[in-house]
């Protein structure tokens, strides 16, 4: 593994190096490969709370590395790590009270600056303002592309619940975007 660039080594070999000998370079490669997607997912799930998202990403990797030897590779490493991250993000949401909307808006403005992306900012902001349950299902289904069955397994809810929450989430987003549009035209 030392002679070939780590970027060309597959996840499984890197994971073996991490779990077998605590290889730091192998871990860093895995981290750089999968953290941007994990971080974005967790950040969105948490409604844009950066510090919480970083804590969740850290705990996700710690748990993943600790359990690497138990991972059976029936899914991709990214899917498995994302699942860990999702569970931890949900725990965080349950544990902490929601941040005040004004503060959230301020953070979102700072993070997504370009004016021409105004529509995207509005959508991101609307998603962030959804109740936790709605936001989780909408992000997983409409942004990440999970099916209702996958959401049902991941969140341990009924498929019907997932569908109804998605329906309500979409309605809520439409409503938020509509009211924002009216406010900007007024």
């Amino acid at each position, binding site marked *: 593994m030392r002679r070939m660039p780590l970027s060309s080594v597959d996840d499984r070999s890197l994971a073996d190096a991490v779990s077998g000998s605590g290889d730091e370079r192998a871990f860093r490669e895995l981290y*750089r490969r999968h953290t941007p997607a994990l*971080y*974005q997912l967790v950040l969105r799930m948490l409604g844009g709370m950066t510090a919480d998202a*970083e804590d969740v990403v850290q705990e996700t990797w710690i748990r993943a590395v600790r359990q690497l030897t138990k991972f059976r590779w029936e899914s991709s490493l990214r899917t498995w790590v994302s699942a860990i991250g999702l569970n931890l993000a949900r725990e965080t949401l349950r544990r902490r009270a929601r941040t005040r909307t004004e503060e959230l808006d301020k953070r979102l403005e700072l993070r997504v600056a370009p004016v021409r992306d105004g529509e995207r900012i509005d*959508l991101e902001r609307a998603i962030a303002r959804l109740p936790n349950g709605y936001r989780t299902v909408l992000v997983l289904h409409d942004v990440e592309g999970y099916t209702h069955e996958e959401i049902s397994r991941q969140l341990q809810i009924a498929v019907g619940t997932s569908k109804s929450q998605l329906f309500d989430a979409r309605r809520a*987003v439409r409503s938020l975007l509509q009211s924002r549009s009216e406010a900007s035209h007024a």
Partner: protein
Amino acid sequence: MHDQDELTPEERAALESLPREREPERPLEERIVRALRAQGLLAPPVPFRLVPPAMAWLAAAAALVVVFAGGMGLGAWLEARHTTQVVLDMHQRDAAAAAALVQRTGSAYVSALSALASFSGRARPQELQSGREAAVSALQAAANQTVRLVPEEPIAVDILQGMARAARGDTLEAAAEPRRVVWF
């Protein structure tokens, strides 16, 4: 988004335009690596190892010689300084202190000889010779000083007379190979 369960093409496009990846701040990676190390899940960092080129090996060898020679010089200086201090002490102390010093240095002398004797039979005679010469010379010098202190001291007198007899027999050998004792 409209009021139906299905997304419109515009809504779908808007959702698809959302970023799927975001780079966290760089310190997060370091933070996580440190946390993993602290929990023993990652090996500690490998210490930096430099393989020097040939010239660097030569320079390192030269530096080693300088350090070694410096150490030797320092050791010799410290030893000489120690001996000088003992001599100074002998001249500056009172009679009781001088007697105590004779006792201490005598014990050290006997201990040193005992250590040297433990090598007899294992070391080559040449290796023991300088020690033997030093021991005899010290014994003779001590006997001389003892006679100076107490002229009738029978043991000291006997030692000196025995040495004088031995020296007469050894004259030729002594001339061929001068003694190498150096007093500090």
